[in-house]
């Protein structure tokens, strides 16, 4: 029974990694931009929620709700005035700029909040659990996983059911022809990054509720997010969820065997999938 429990906890952990990864997947899917500062942006989001909680005395969930529009605007401005300038045939400029952004963010957070590790204040909810047969499930991991599914369903609805989603797909296919349709590619890209930042805020909320964070943990979150995106196949959102689950299960299984193996087991699972399916499990046809 311990194995069933371990696998289920792993699946739920995968929800967190899928949340880390969805924003990355969205931005890459639409503008082929790999944002190396993604992990640090999640950490920044967690600090923003912490500040709102501390100053306004709000619950973390309410604080995250307020942080979302703020983060949307930040993402919009970042894309419109910085990242759009790096887009082009050459893939190096966006990598260099977001790498620089990552370092700048880490140092700015360190300067502002010190290296002490922080945590969003816990309530009864964070330690509550429900009994499902022989397995005991934490309410927080369940909420995380549910949020991941909600985010992916919402993104799919946005992509395939709305006018904005059509514009996202058209601009991703061919920005020049999209502009002939009256679309401003620069604004479409800015909106996409804004939405990615809203997802970053959701990821930041669960990161801060479930574990400690400090200014230096961003790059490791980026690695998990990357692995989830690559395992799932670039640009596939459901694939990203599955990728997150595979990493989560591998990590908890590894930890169950020997706590030292937790992170390593996740990396092994990633390499194994790449060995068998180099383009991920659900690659898009035209990449």
């Amino acid at each position, binding site marked *: 029974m311990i194995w069933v429990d371990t696998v289920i906890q792993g699946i739920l952990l995968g929800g967190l990694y899928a949340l880390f990864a969805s924003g990355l997947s969205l931005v890459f899917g639409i503008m082929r931009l790999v944002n190396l500062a993604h992990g640090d942006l999640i950490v920044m989001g967690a600090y923003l929620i912490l500040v709102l909680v501390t100053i306004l005395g709000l619950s973390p969930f309410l604080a995250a709700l307020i942080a979302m529009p703020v983060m949307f605007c930040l993402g919009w401005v970042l894309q419109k005035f910085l990242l759009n300038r790096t887009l082009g045939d050459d893939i190096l400029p966006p990598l260099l700029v977001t790498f620089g952004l990552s370092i700048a963010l880490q140092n700015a957070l360190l300067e502002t909040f010190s290296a002490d590790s922080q945590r969003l204040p816990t309530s009864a909810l964070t330690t509550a659990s429900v009994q499902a047969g022989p397995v005991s499930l934490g309410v927080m991991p369940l909420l995380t996983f549910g949020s991941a599914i909600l985010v992916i369903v919402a993104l799919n609805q946005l992509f395939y059911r709305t*006018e904005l989603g*059509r*514009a996202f*797909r*058209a601009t*991703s*296919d*061919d920005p*020049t*022809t*999209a*502009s*002939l*349709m*009256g*679309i*401003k590619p620069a604004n479409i890209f800015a909106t996409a990054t804004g939405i990615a930042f809203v997802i970053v805020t959701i990821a930041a909320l669960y990161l801060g509720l479930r574990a400690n964070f400090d200014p230096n943990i961003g790059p490791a979150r980026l690695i998990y997010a990357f692995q989830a995106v690559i395992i799932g196949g670039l640009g596939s959102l459901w694939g990203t969820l599955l990728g997150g689950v595979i990493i989560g299960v591998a990590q908890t299984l590894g930890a169950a065997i020997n706590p030292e193996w937790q992170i390593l087991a996740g990396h092994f699972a990633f390499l194994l999938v790449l060995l068998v399916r180099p383009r991920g499990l659900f690659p898009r046809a*035209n990449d």
Partner: protein
Amino acid sequence: MAPLQTPLLKTNGLVAYYGDFQALFGVDIELDVDETVAIIGANGAGKTTLMRSIAGILRNAATSVSFDGRPIGAQPADEIMTQGVAMVPEGRRLFPSLSVEENLLIGTYGRKSRGYWTLDTVYDLFPILRERRNNPGTALSGGQQQMVAIGRALMSNPRVLLCDEISLGLAPVVIKDIYKAVPAIKAAGASLIVVEQDIAQAMAFADRVYCMMEGRVTLSGTPDTLSRNDIHDAYFGASQ
């Protein structure tokens, strides 16, 4: 033979470059309201560059293109399109991630379309598209894809429709089908600039013809005033 009213669309000494390569050397063309103009010329004459310059994909000096008396030469493509100049680009350029219907709907992005053209009227113009509405745009035959590309441009109810090589690579019977749509397009209030390689086709439907060679207009006039020899010379540059 200058028209009395201001032309709807006009280029004014239009020059265009690709990097260091100059593709247009002072092109002057005019399009009046309700007129259909054909642009003919050999490959590399600058026809597509002219279209891309008018549509705003290539940016130019503000006064080098004017629409409705306003200088639009320096505006980006999206602003030119929202003012009423739509383009059917060379090679159709459908969006592979979008279905036929979504490809049509993207033509009205961010605006309430006012005018004759809606999904229904476009489907009436090209009934085969109604049957294929849920297919990916790129799963259609070349002629059907061209119909989608034309329909997509019409969905914005443009006042000027730029058609770049709409018969390129299509069978003659399919070309006939596509040109059958021209009267309906004109009746709905669009003036047309059509780039066409087929001289006979151009002479048959155009009110006026411009012939281009090496980035310049070498001949212009109404089809009945142009002899085959004039056109031959303007086309190939073999004068005398």
